[in-house]
């Protein structure tokens, strides 16, 4: 240890010699950044159109964002057969527990660059029928919202649950399509902001 110290001491002498020529040698801390790109928590919120108190929430979480911790799908989606729901989202960045950020507003601001796409077990819903718009972007989902160019966004969509079933699938993908989005762009255009596959039950 003392050897190390003496080496450091002599080293520092050398540095001081040269250091005299420097205007400043301060070490600054980097400013904390607001992570604007990372999603850690996505929650699907199905609200029954006939009864605003009937709310079904299903969440997915990747608590360390870019870190290697695996994504966890926390809930299954359980809807009532025949009921009509409006699906909205809560999209958060909770990397910093003291400063949780809601990214839904940002997507709304840039809605001409974003679109939500859906894929589900064929016939899970009576409306929309089919299996969603992954395979064909132009049909199969009831969008409630459009951007300034009148293209679908999907921050709000409408769903009428079909017959009772368990273990079906409901997949939602948010695509970021800067300079790409048109009326006909699909699930593979642009880049993926999130892509989540939930288990869907209807009872």
């Amino acid at each position, binding site marked *: 240890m003392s050897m190390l110290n003496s*080496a450091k001491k002599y*080293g520092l002498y050398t*540095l001081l010699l040269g250091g005299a020529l420097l205007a400043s040698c301060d070490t600054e801390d*980097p400013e904390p950044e607001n992570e604007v790109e990372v999603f850690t928590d996505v929650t699907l919120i199905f609200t029954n159109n006939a009864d605003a108190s009937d709310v079904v929430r299903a969440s997915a979480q990747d608590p360390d964002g870019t*870190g*290697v911790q695996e994504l966890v799908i926390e809930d299954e989606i359980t809807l009532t057969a025949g009921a009509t729901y409006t699906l909205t989202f809560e999209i958060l960045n909770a*990397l910093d527990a003291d400063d949780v950020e809601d990214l839904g507003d940002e997507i709304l601001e840039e809605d001409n660059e974003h679109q939500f796409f859906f894929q589900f077990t064929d016939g899970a819903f009576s409306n929309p029928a089919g299996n969603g718009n992954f395979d064909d972007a132009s049909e199969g989902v009831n969008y409630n919202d459009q951007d300034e160019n009148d293209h679908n966004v999907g921050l709000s969509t409408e769903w009428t649950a079909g017959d009772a079933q368990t273990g079906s699938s409901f997949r939602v993908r948010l695509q970021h399509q800067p300079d790409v989005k048109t009326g006909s762009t699909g699930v593979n255009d642009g*880049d993926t*902001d999130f892509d*989540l596959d939930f288990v869907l039950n209807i009872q």
Partner: protein
Amino acid sequence: MKISVSIAIALSLTVCLTSPGMAMYFPTDSCEYEIKGQILDVETEQPIPFATLLVEGTQKGVAADDQGAFVLDHLCEKEYNLIFSSVGYKTVKHHHDWHHGKIKIYLTPSVSTLESVVVEGEEVVGGLASVSLETMDRADLATKTTQSLASAISDISGVTLISTGTNVQLPVIHGLYGNRILIINNGVKHGFQNWGIDHAPEIDLTSANRIRVLKGAAGVQYGPEGLGGAVVVEGDPLLLSKKLYGNVATGYQSNGQGYHAQGQFGRGYEKFSYHVGAKHIRVGDRHAPNYMLTNSGMNELSANVGLRYHLPGWDFKVYYSYVQQELGLLRSSVAESGPLFIRSLAAEEPLFVREFSYQINEPKQTTTHHLANATVDWYTEVGKLSLLLSQQINHRDEFDVRRNANLPIIDLDLFTTQTLLTWDHTAFHGLEGRIGFQFFYQDNNNNPGTGTTPYIPNYNTYRGSAFVIESLQKNNTTYELGLRVDYEFNSVRGRELNQDLFRNTYDFTNVTGSLGMVHDFSQQLQLRVNVGSAWRAPNMAELYSFGQHRFKTQFGLWRYYADEEGRLRTDRVLTEEDGTSEYERGYKWINELALNKDGNQLTLTAYANLIDNFIFDRPIAVIGTIRGPMPVFIFDQTDALFLGTDLTYTREWNPNWESTLGVSYLWSQNLSKNEPLINQPPINTQAEVAWNMPAFFSLDRSKLTVQGVYTFQQFQAPRTIPPTQLISGEVVVTTDSEIFDFKDAPEGYFLGNVRWEWQRGALGGQLEVRNVFNTAYRDYLNQMRYFADDPGRNFLFSIQYKF
């Protein structure tokens, strides 16, 4: 560590004790200076027999011999104005200092509009003769003005380039690249964001008068990190007593519809000289044979100025250069999510192809680089003392395709201060050499407002160094010895993902050395042998990189670890206490045999480079994220061995025809795991035929060069595991698993190039076709090989007026 400190003290004592004593060994009779040189024809490069040399203002003079060589001895002064002349040639005046070595005088025929020129030899410095060295002078560089530094030197055997697309190119020497190659710009280490393979040095080729590529352990003289070698860029020599000289040039290239303009001029007076240069180049989207390479354009502006003031025995020089770059990166190389990466890998054609445009959108890099140097040279009886002060400011912004694309994802300011004090002592018992002290300081700061956790932290690096290189000539053999001590201290400040601050300080002390020999078997046959060590501290990106940038999610050595099951973990920042990330230490042994006989020039180089704790970047996993599965890369460390050989054979069939054949072969291995490394240069062969065409039409001369290059597939590439197999769980990979890549190494390819240069008086030009056959190919060392082909056929035209 104690030993190294003692050596440092011993070194400084040597300087203090020997300098007064040494004066005794210098000539007491002051009329013992001499000037040696050779007088040549500028066009044919043949000697001019019996040309004359006159010392201005005296009756003293001498005639050259039949080989154009002359020796003027018994001179009492150290500096003279010399006048060289010969019948039929333009007379040239040259200011000569005794400390400059052998000079070469190129006389221009009287009928030509060009001026005669003088080239000063190397200053008397020993210690690097045994290192394999290649030099490119202004004439070589003039045919490459629109190329990058790396591309320009990549014709040298054993040198290739690694790139991230068309605009970001780094030199590779014997399989090593990045910050294992020292880039020395006008005497100092180029201070730039030298990490990863997506940052190229901001150096404008036209600012260089000469580029020297050292392929051995050059670290003793130039500083740590030169494990692979060094690229030394020298500016205009600022000669005194020189008429106004310079050139203006412009050109166009078809691929990318690029254009450039450049100009430079200089003048040397009796005591003062200057040189000024500037260049602008703009290129739009390049195209591969089958599609557009969208967003591959670039825009670069550069300027430089050098001043010299001379007093007897003293030289004062100031140099400033500015480079501003905006570099586009292939749009299709961005994959924010795994599914897109997978589709990009599988796609025949890039996923994002648009019409041609000059527009540079995200992803892109913008940089500005300032370099300011001040040098004082003092020529004394005991040799040359030189003090160099240098300051560089590098500002870099990088933009990714993302929701906040207008914000840079990387925004860094890097300040580099260097002080270099050297003493080139005159011969002492036959020993010639240089003793030097160097101080290096670097301050890197993240500018706030990127909206993302800093990819690399703020840091300050302080380094103090002392070195000595000496050479001794005995008969036909020169022996060389070099020794260097470095102490480096680092202070790091960064942010974790949750914006918690982390801090660390650590230091390194190192001794490196080199031992060399040059033996002349005969006038024609020469052998160089050099064994050298070098070291390099892991750079900040290798230690601390964290996060996603373009298509990669990357973790530095101190940002990940493997748990008991070998699974990757990234939940804490490591330190040196965790025992990972030793500094790299390299040992390079290089042998070069050069034969020059009857118009045959053969150079055979064989080398072995052992690197302990070699740090490299490799794919490791595909992990599930909210965006879908993402490819993950880590920095890893191992002991590695590089064995290779380069062969160049040039044959001058007659004064007008010349052919060259070159082969470079490198074998490399991860010794700890007994498996291949990744991103190593494949075997490369090239053949060239040049024809100096006789004068026709009104052209004074012209030259046609035809070149064929075959690059083999990399047979030593790691195994391939497509990301889909990792996602499906078909293949499970841990940190201990054998190395893999996401895509096969591309197939071998042949490229044809043709160049025609012409000269008519002061006017010259060239017409060049690169990739004549419009071959669709991917280069293993281009990171874009995952996404797109390299550029297709390119016609380049340029015209130059020289005065």
